[in-house]
């Protein structure tokens, strides 16, 4: 039962008394083999949970860093099938780290929800975040994922008011992703003080752990959010390292993992510093 991998990880984090670090990277960026190497290095670098983006041509909720990451991956011929192959290869060496796929609905429409859910489960996927699939449209996908034991992780945002929150967390499992800013990924900066009451609100409504993302770029910001959230998601800052390494002709894997390490460290130490 793959969903429990997420539950087990959050239970362990709770026992340790710290927030988790969720690292987002894009499948196939800068190429399939290197992206797999990055993925395989992330747990040792301190990633408690991995979000693996699968590229889409029209990522309407992403800021420039993840847009460019998707473009780089697509230019290298990355596909959803190859993304699942990447997951399967990762799973061979890691049975414990929860892996969440994140992306847009159309490639799944193309694959077919039922078939995709079965194939994703077989590859070792634990959850799915689909940005352009709000609860009102999610039932067909949720049915397919339920049958395969994959969690459909829901997004709550600053515009999700108390009236709407129950709709958003209906049929959710694993954790809830709180989008900390009204905006696209990696542009505005998250304000930990403003995030805190919302995390509590979402936790209460869902009974699930809350991961916070969008607009967390630095170890300092990650540490601040880690004091109030159950997990902290960083994406744009990591995929920007792929771009930077490419420009500077440096080792991509080392550069991304080094950034992940500094973020993970900040998240791990956050509450110790706070208390």
């Amino acid at each position, binding site marked *: 039962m793959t969903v429990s991998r997420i539950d087990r990880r959050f239970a362990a984090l709770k026992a340790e008394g710290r927030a988790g670090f969720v690292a987002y990277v894009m499948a196939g960026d800068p190429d399939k083999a290197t992206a797999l190497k990055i993925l395989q290095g992330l747990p040792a670098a301190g990633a408690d949970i991995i979000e693996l983006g699968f590229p889409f041509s029209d990522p309407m909720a992403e800021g420039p860093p993840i847009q460019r990451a998707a473009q780089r991956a697509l230019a290298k011929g990355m596909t959803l099938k190859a993304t699942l192959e990447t997951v399967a290869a990762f799973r061979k060496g890691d049975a414990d780290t929860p892996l969440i796929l994140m992306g847009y609905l159309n490639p799944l429409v*193309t694959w077919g929800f039922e078939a995709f859910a079965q194939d994703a489960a077989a590859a070792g996927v634990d959850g799915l975040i689909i940005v352009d699939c709000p609860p009102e449209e999610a039932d067909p996908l949720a049915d397919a994922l339920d049958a395969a034991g994959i969690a459909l992780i829901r997004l709550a945002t600053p*515009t999700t008011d108390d009236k709407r929150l129950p709709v958003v967390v209906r049929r959710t499992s694993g954790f809830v992703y709180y989008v900390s800013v009204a905006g696209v990924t990696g542009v505005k900066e998250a304000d930990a003080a403003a995030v805190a009451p919302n995390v509590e609100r979402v936790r209460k409504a869902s009974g699930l752990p809350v991961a916070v993302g969008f607009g967390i770029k630095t170890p300092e910001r990650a540490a601040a959010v880690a004091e109030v959230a159950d997990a902290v998601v960083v994406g744009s800052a990591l995929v920007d390292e792929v771009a930077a390494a490419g420009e500077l002709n440096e080792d991509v894997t080392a550069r991304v993992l080094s950034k992940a390490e500094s973020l993970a460290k900040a998240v791990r130490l956050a509450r110790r510093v706070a208390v």
Partner: protein
Amino acid sequence: MNAPTSSIGARPNDYTAYPDANGRFGDYGGRYVAETLMPLVLDLGEAYAAAKVDPEFQAELSGYLKHYVGRPSPLYFAERLTQHYGGAKIYLKREELNHTGAHKINNCMGQILLAMRMGKTRIIAETGAGQHGVATATVCARFGLPCVVYMGAVDVERQKPNVFRMNLLGAEVRPVTSGSATLKDAMNEALRDWVTNVHDTFYIIGSAAGPHPYPAMVRDFQAVIGNETRQQLWELEGRLPDVVVACVGGGSNAIGLFHPFLNDEHVKIVGVEASGDGMSTHRHAAAINGGRPGVLHGNKTYLIQDPEGQIEEAHSISAGLDYPGIGPEHSWLHDVGRAQYLTCTDKEALAAFQLCAELEGIIPALESSHALARLPECVDMAGKDGIVVLNLSGRGDKDVATVAEHLGRTI
């Protein structure tokens, strides 16, 4: 004497009863947006539903359409085109005579009045050729609201006069370099702006596409085209047309003409998609004829996409049809067989453009020229004593440079 109104009721094939409460036309439409936008889209749906049945709102809109836009637009008997094809009578619905030269302003006027009613203070829009951008900039100038128009960098380059027009009207044009730097990317960027400025901003979508309620709302604002046509043809001929025909990109001018005729099942409905270099070349913009259903820009609809579900670039000589999707109501009308969707190549559109100019003294938009090119088929469908109404959705002054280039002329 008034034209018969179409029968609206609960009969199983009441085509005008859509979308349903979830914004669905059959399997198409819906609200596929990021959660941040969902509350805004739901708010907009409620605000529009209230405005739609508010006589004061409708009276205000009608007033501006009459005195500012110049409605009603004429329904003109195209005598020489009729003679040329030697069959059914051809009427042109002269949307190109509207203020700003196309049908786009019908919708912009409706949406900006709604924006002000909702207390929004900033307007954004996407544009391809620049026609919708110009219409949006126009109504923003008229009502004194700041306006940002997103336009693909490629389109900014090939539509410089329209960029300047928008600037003259006080709008800021932001070139979009992401993705393929064309209309679909401009729409992505407008959605990104909206998700970032959720409190004060109203997004005026120009196509009968996007998340619910846009496809229905844009259709309703454009339905003035078909409603006038019914009335005018009744006065001129005492009957309904046999065929109505319009070009389809996103499909707002087409659905505006078609919708009031949907329940008159003897009226044949023909949409014309742009097939660019030809359907076999993969360089086309024909979502129905060359695509398959998928999800993009907030709705489920036919899309031009690769086998992996990545959206492909559309190609058409007409920037206004250069979009890889189509409004969801068209997808549904196609599937249920109520409308048929033909195609027209760049070459055929160019020939029709010249023919209309030479025979009728009307330079049509390249978009509308796609519909003109299928007149022979429509005349056949209508029969010898039949009547065809074609939506002349825009004027072609904006296209003369493009046409000259394709004809190998320098101007």
